[in-house]
């Protein structure tokens, strides 16, 4: 069974100008250990699709099964818990908590899961080492560069050992050196920890490194 299975997912946004179909009948699946990029121009529905997979947005039609659970049917409360337990998120704008140190940010999801401080600090430190930021563990986000913040965000997403990580344009705000470093780290983690990564991107550098490419156009998968 595939890790993630999408069946005819449709997402329509209603606005005063009329309805916009952001995702239009997408059916695909993702296997464990994938390093996949959903690619396409701005407004093609990448982020909407990613939000739907991540349970942040409910599709109007279709099913999304993760490990056999149809998350479309989950109640709001259960969906929040499902996200907490099974999905890691990396956002375009890093979205670290400014009052927490890199170590605390990395361990934050574990804290929400109720993991003891000792355990989460150990795991967070291990991940900060993996992303090359062990020496910045006690710095707050405003003391880190954009690339470093995004590495902390990746470490945070990985901390709870989620089933997969959704990264929405993770390199959009990074220079090429930081992008390379981040991609190296994610590729290494994908290799070593078998972590599944799904990106949405239009960054050629990311596309070049992806092992599977899903081109999206006007809300539909092309070239399949």
């Amino acid at each position, binding site marked *: 069974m595939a890790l993630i299975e999408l069946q005819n997912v449709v997402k329509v946004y209603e606005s005063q100008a009329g309805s916009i179909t952001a995702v239009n009948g997408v059916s695909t699946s993702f296997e464990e250990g994938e390093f996949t990029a959903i690619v396409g121009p701005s407004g093609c529905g990448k982020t909407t699709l990613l939000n739907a997979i991540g349970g942040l947005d409910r599709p109007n039609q279709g099913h999304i099964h993760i490990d056999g659970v149809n998350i479309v049917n989950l109640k709001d409360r259960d969906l*929040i818990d499902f996200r907490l337990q099974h999905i890691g998120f990396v956002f375009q704008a890093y979205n670290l*908590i400014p009052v927490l140190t890199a170590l605390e940010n990395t361990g*934050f999801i574990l804290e929400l899961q109720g993991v003891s401080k000792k355990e989460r600090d150990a795991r967070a430190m291990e991940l900060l080492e993996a992303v090359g930021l062990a020496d910045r563990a006690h710095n707050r986000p405003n003391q880190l560069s954009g690339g470093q913040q995004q590495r902390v965000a990746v470490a945070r997403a990985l901390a709870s050992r989620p089933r997969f990580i959704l990264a929405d344009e993770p390199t959009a705000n990074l220079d090429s050196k930081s992008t390379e470093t981040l991609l190296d780290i994610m590729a290494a983690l994908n290799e070593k920890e078998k972590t599944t990564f799904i990106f949405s991107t239009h960054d050629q550098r990311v596309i070049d490194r992806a092992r599977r490419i899903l081109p999206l156009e006007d809300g539909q998968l092309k070239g399949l």
Partner: protein
Amino acid sequence: MAWRNIWRSPWRSIVVIGSMALGVWAGIFMMGWATGLNDARTVSLLDDNVGHGRITSAAYEASPEATALIPHLPRVLENLSRDTAVTAVAPRLVLQAMIQSGSGAAPALVLGVYPEAEQAVFKAARTITTGTFLGEREADEIVLGEELARRLEVEIDDRVVLTFQDLAGEVHSALFYVVGLYDGASNLLEETMLYVPAWNIATQMGMLDSTLLGREYPVAHQVNFRVKDPYAMDPTVDNLRMQDSLRLHHVFIRSRIESLAALERDSTPLVIKEWRSISPELGYADEIMAQSLLLFMTIILLAMAFGILNTMLMAILERTRELGMLMAVGMNKRRLFFLIVAETLLLSFAGLPIGLVLGHGTLAITSRTGITLQGVEKGLAEFGLESTIYPITVPEFYLPVAGLVFILSFLSALYPARKALKLNPIESMRVL
């Protein structure tokens, strides 16, 4: 995390915490000030004419008849004199009478007093504005309130006639010379209350016989007394009640009069009251004051609560993106709610102890130095108060104030928390 969040905008938080501290300080100081003022007024009224405690016979308590004398007065006085808390005693006779002058008549409450004892307990008997207080024990002297004298158009050395029923039920009239006018705490008292020597009125009433003549205080309807601290009265009264001799040991007033003989037979017990029972309105004034002060404090804190609510709303507006992220990664609504409530409570409670300490400190200092009000001496004197007011510390209010802060800040957290809970993670994260 809640505590660190507060310090994202240090100046804003300092202003909120400072205003909370200031509000609590002002409220606590106001409470101490008003309590001090009220206590001073109460003590002044107690000094003036209420006294701190009063003993009567149960019969007098049930119906204040002239016959209802205290049945074993020497023992009562002896017991009071043994009590270290009691500083002065004043036995009194109390009669209803009509007073007449050449130009008018009025109902009056006649106090038959033993002058020195009366003056030791009551200020009204000491504040003689014209003439003197009563002198010789059996003289035909009378002291009126200024207001009554004005109404009856009498002056010093004028004659007035008191008409009253004696113990035999006969209507009796007696002539008195005005020797002094007193300045009472209220016009109402000045209009009705007047003083004559107890010995004189007791004789006229037919209360004395030869066996009583040797005593310092032969008869009384009331024994009023002063204690060291009128606010520590309950133990004093309880202590007096415990003394068996007061209730069980009977010393009877001998009398030829039939009604007193009846009193002898039924060995009436005594009633001891403290000032709150003698003058319930003074006790109520304390309670009303306490409740009003808490009401004022609630209003002050309510204003604070709106400030805090505003601050929290701003904080949430600024952090929309971050709150969206928290929800996206899996922070549930309960945790988010508690985060906002915790931030609000911390913001409030950071100011509370500062306000309490400042308030307590200010009260502790001013309770020793006093605060003198300039230009309102006359108004204060009308209430029987000095121009220097001594606020008092009010630790009994600190817990209710803390409780109020807790409740109001919790309530002020609800709206911002609700706002936060209603955020949609995706839309919130789009906010720049």
